C-alpha cells in the first residue's frame, strides 16, 4: 500500500485529518499520525479540562496551587484514587468491573495498623508486601468467581464488596488505628516529598507507568483489550480468557491492597468505614478518562487523568463557593457527559469506517 499525499472523499472534497486518521491512518506521515493521534485523544482533552479547572481555582485563590499545602494536596489527594483507577481500568477493559476495591482497601488499611501493633519490629517493606499480597488474594477470589461461575462481575464484586466490608467490621469493630500506634518512619512516608513531589504520588505514577507500558507493549496487555472487545472471538482465537480475567482482578485487588497501606501512611487513622464508596469514584474516573464501559478500548493514562480531574474538581468547587448540591451535580454531569460523548463518537466513527470501505469497494 502506497501512502497517498492527500485523501479525498468520493465527491472530491478533502477529508479532514482526523477522519483520515480514523479510516486510513497509513496515508498520513508517521509524524503527522502521532501528532493527530495525540491532539485528538481523549486523554489530552480531559487533561486540558484539568488545567482549566486548576487555573480557574488558582486565579480565585492562589493558595489552591501556590502554597506548600495546596501543591501537596493537588498531587497527593488524587494519588490513591489514581492507583484504584489504574486497576479498575484494566478490569473494565476486559469487560468486567470490580466494585470490591473500597472494601479491600479498608481491609488492608486495618491490616497495616494491626501488623504494626501486633508485630512490632516488622520492617515497613514487609508490611507493604503483606498488604499487597492480601489484596491480591482477595482479587483472586473475585477473579475465580467471575471466570469460573459465568456470573457478571457486577454481581460477584457487589457481593464481595459486602463480604469484605463485613470482615473488616467484625474484625475491627469500633476499634480504631491511631497515628500513635504507627511507627513515625512509616507515617513520614505519607508526607515525605522528593523535589516537592510527594512520595505517594511518585509511587502512583510509577505503577501507572509500568501498567501503561505493559498494556501497550506486551502480548498479555493487548489480550486484555481483545477480550473486552469481543469475548467470544477471544475464545475462537485461542486466547486464555480465564487467565487474563483472573490476572486483571488480581492486579486490581493488589493495587487496592497497596492503596490501603498508603492510606494509613497518609492519614494515620483507620476506622472500619475507610474507603466506603471509593469504588464508584474509581469507576467514574475510568469512564471520564475514556475507557469504554463495555471494554475493549481506552488507556490507563486516561483513567489516571480522570482520577486527577475528579479529585481536583471536588477540591476546587468548594473554594469557588459552589453549593454542595451543585458540586455533586457537576461530577454527575461529567460522568453522563463522558458516556454520552463516548456513544456519539463511537457511532459516528463506526458509520465513517463503514462508509470509507464502501467507497473503495
Amino acid at each position, binding site marked *: *500500500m502506497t501512502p497517498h499525499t492527500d485523501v479525498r472523499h468520493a465527491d472530491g472534497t478533502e477529508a479532514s485529518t482526523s477522519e483520515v486518521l480514523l479510516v*486510513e491512518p*497509513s496515508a498520513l506521515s508517521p509524524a503527522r499520525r502521532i501528532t493527530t493521534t495525540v491532539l485528538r485523544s481523549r486523554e489530552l482533552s480531559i487533561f486540558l479540562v484539568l488545567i482549566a479547572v486548576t487555573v480557574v481555582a488558582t486565579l480565585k485563590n492562589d493558595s489552591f496551587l501556590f502554597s506548600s499545602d495546596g501543591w501537596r494536596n493537588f498531587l497527593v489527594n488524587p494519588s490513591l484514587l489514581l492507583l484504584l483507577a489504574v486497576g479498575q481500568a484494566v478490569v473494565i477493559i476486559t469487560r468486567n468491573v470490580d466494585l470490591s476495591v473500597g472494601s479491600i482497601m479498608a481491609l488492608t488499611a486495618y491490616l497495616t495498623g494491626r501488623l504494626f501493633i501486633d508485630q512490632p519490629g516488622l520492617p515497613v517493606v514487609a508490611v507493604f508486601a503483606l498488604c499487597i499480597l492480601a489484596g491480591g488474594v482477595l482479587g483472586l477470589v473475585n477473579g475465580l468467581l467471575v471466570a469460573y461461575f459465568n456470573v457478571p462481575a457486577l454481581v460477584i464484586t457487589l457481593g464481595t464488596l459486602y463480604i469484605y466490608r463485613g470482615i473488616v467490621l467484625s474484625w475491627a469493630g469500633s476499634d480504631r488505628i491511631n497515628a500513635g500506634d504507627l511507627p513515625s518512619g512509616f507515617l513520614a512516608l505519607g508526607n515525605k516529598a522528593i523535589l516537592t513531589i510527594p512520595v505517594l504520588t511518585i509511587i502512583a505514577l510509577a505503577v501507572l507507568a509500568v501498567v501503561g507500558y505493559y498494556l501497550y507493549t506486551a502480548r498479555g496487555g*493487548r489480550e486484555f*483489550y481483545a477480550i473486552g472487545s*469481543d469475548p467470544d472471538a477471544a475464545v*475462537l*482465537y485461542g486466547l486464555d480468557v480465564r487467565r487474563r480475567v483472573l490476572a486483571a482482578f488480581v492486579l486490581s485487588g493488589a493495587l487496592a491492597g497497596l492503596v490501603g497501606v498508603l492510606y494509613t501512611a497518609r492519614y494515620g487513622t483507620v476506622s472500619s468505614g475507610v474507603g466506603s464508596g471509593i469504588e464508584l469514584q474509581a469507576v467514574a474516573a475510568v469512564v471520564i478518562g475514556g475507557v469504554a464501559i463495555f471494554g475493549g478500548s481506552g488507556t490507563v493514562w486516561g483513567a489516571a487523568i480522570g482520577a486527577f480531574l475528579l479529585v481536583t474538581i471536588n477540591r476546587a468547587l468548594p473554594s469557588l463557593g459552589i453549593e454542595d448540591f451543585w458540586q455533586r451535580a457537576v461530577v454527575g454531569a461529567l460522568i453522563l457527559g463522558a458516556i454520552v460523548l463516548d456513544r456519539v463518537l463511537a457511532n459516528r466513527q463506526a458509520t465513517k469506517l*463503514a462508509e470509507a470501505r464502501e467507497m473503495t*469497494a
Partner: protein
Amino acid sequence: MTGTATTVLELRDVSKSFGPVIALRSGSLAVEAGSIHALVGENGAGKSTLVKVVAGVHRRDSGDFLLGGERVDFGSTSESKAAGVAVIYQEPTLFPDLSVTENIFMGRQLLGSGRRIDRAAMYAEAEALFERLGVDLDPRRPARGLSIADQQIIEIAKAISLDARLLIMDEPTAALSGVEVERLFAVARSLRDEGRALVFISHRFDEVFALCDTITVMRDGAYVATHLTEDTSSPAIVAEMVGREVADLFPKTPAQIGEPVLEVDGLQARGVFHDVSFTVHRGEIVGLAGLVGAGRSEIARAVFGVDGYDAGSVRMNGREIARRKPRAAIEAGMAFVPEDRRAQGLVTEASVARNVASVIRGGLARAGLITTGAENRAAGPWAGRLEVKTNALDMSARTMSGGNQQKVVIAKWLATEPDLLIIDEPTRGIDVGTKAEVHRLLSELAGQGMAILMISSELPEVLGMADRVLVVCEGRITADLPREDATPEAVMHAATRQLEVTG
C-alpha cells in the same frame, strides 16, 4: 478412502453427539495438499460439526482424525491452530476495537527486544500480506465497520501468516457480492497453488463446480461419497444429498383446506427480504423451505410483528395487522413458536405450568392476581394432550429434554387457541421418536382446521408434512410448489438458484 503421502487431513468414521442428539454419525473426509475440496450436504447433514471437530471446538466421540498422517486430538482452537489448521467462518469474529493488524496477530504478536511487541514489523508484514492477497486495506485502521468480505480477507491473512497447511472455509460466500466472491476465489486458487489444502463448504453448486477439485457429499451426519469434480454433475450431487425415502417418516393426514387465514402481500424489508406474498388457508400446512440465512425466519418474525418491514401488508382472516405489534398479532389469532426456544420461547427457569399459562395470564387473573392453582388448572389439559412427560406441572422447564421443551412451547401457544401457528424449525435438536410425535401433533392440529406455517431446514420434513412448499432464496420466494410437485430436486434447485439480477 485411503490416505496417500500428500493427504493433509483425514477423518474416518468420526462421530459426535450432544446429549441425545447425534450431530455427526460417521463423518469421513480426506483432503489432499494442493487441492480444494468441497464439502456439501443439506442443512443438518453434519458439515459444521465436522468442521468444529477439526477446529478443536468440539472433541469427537469416536473415529480416527489424522493431520499430515499423524493422529491428533484437539481440545481447543489454539491446539488446532498450532497444528496448522485455520477455519474461516461464514461470519468472522474479529475484535472491532483493535486495528486490522492486531486482529491478524493477536495472541502471537511479533516481538522485538525485551519481548516487547514490535508494531513496525507487524504493520510491515500485514501490508505485505494484503499486497499478496491483492486487497487495499489499511493495516492501521480498526476492524470496526469492515464488510464481511473484508473480515474474511483478514481471516485469510491470519491463516497465511500462521502458515496454515489446511484452510477450512465454512460457507464463506453466503454474504458476499459477485466481485467479492471472485476475489475470494482468486485468493483460494493461489493458496492451492502454493500446496495448501482447502476445504470449501457451500450450498451454491455453481461455485462448488467452478472452484473445487473434489467433492464430498454428506447426509444425515454421515459420509455418502467422494467424487472428482470432472466426473460428476450437479443433479448427481443433489440426488446423493437428498437420496432417501421421505414419505413414511412424516405422517401427514390429508385435511380439509378451507378459506384463507393469513394473507401476506408484497412484504419487504430492505436488505432482508423482498416482494414476499403468500397465503395460508385453514387446515393447510405450508412449508417454508430454503437454506440457512435465506431469510425465512426473518419473514416469519416480520409477519408476527416482532420485526418491522418497509412495505407490504399482513392480513389475518381478512383484517390487516399493524406492523411491529406482536400483541395485535396474538389477538388476531396468530401464534409463533420461535427457532431458538431456549432463548425466545420458553422461560426455562419457570415451571411448566407457568410457561404454558404465560400468554393467557390476562384471562387467568382474578382481581389482578394469578395463583399457581389457576395456572395449573389452565395448563393441565394442554400438557396432557401433548403428552408432555413431566412428573408434575411445577417441574422446572429447564430440566426437560429438547422434545418436551418444544411441546411446552407449543402448548403455551395452543392455550391461546390460535387460527394460525407459525413454527420455526419444529424438530431441531429433537430425537427421532419425539420428532414423529411433533409431526403427528402438527398434522392433527391442521386436521382440526388450524392453519400452519412451518419453517424447516430439513428437506424431508418439509416434503413430508407440507401441503404446499414455498422456497425462499436470498430473501425472495423463488418457488411455490404444491405437494405433488415438491420433489427434493425441485426444492433444492429453487433454494440454490443464483439470482443473477440482484440489486
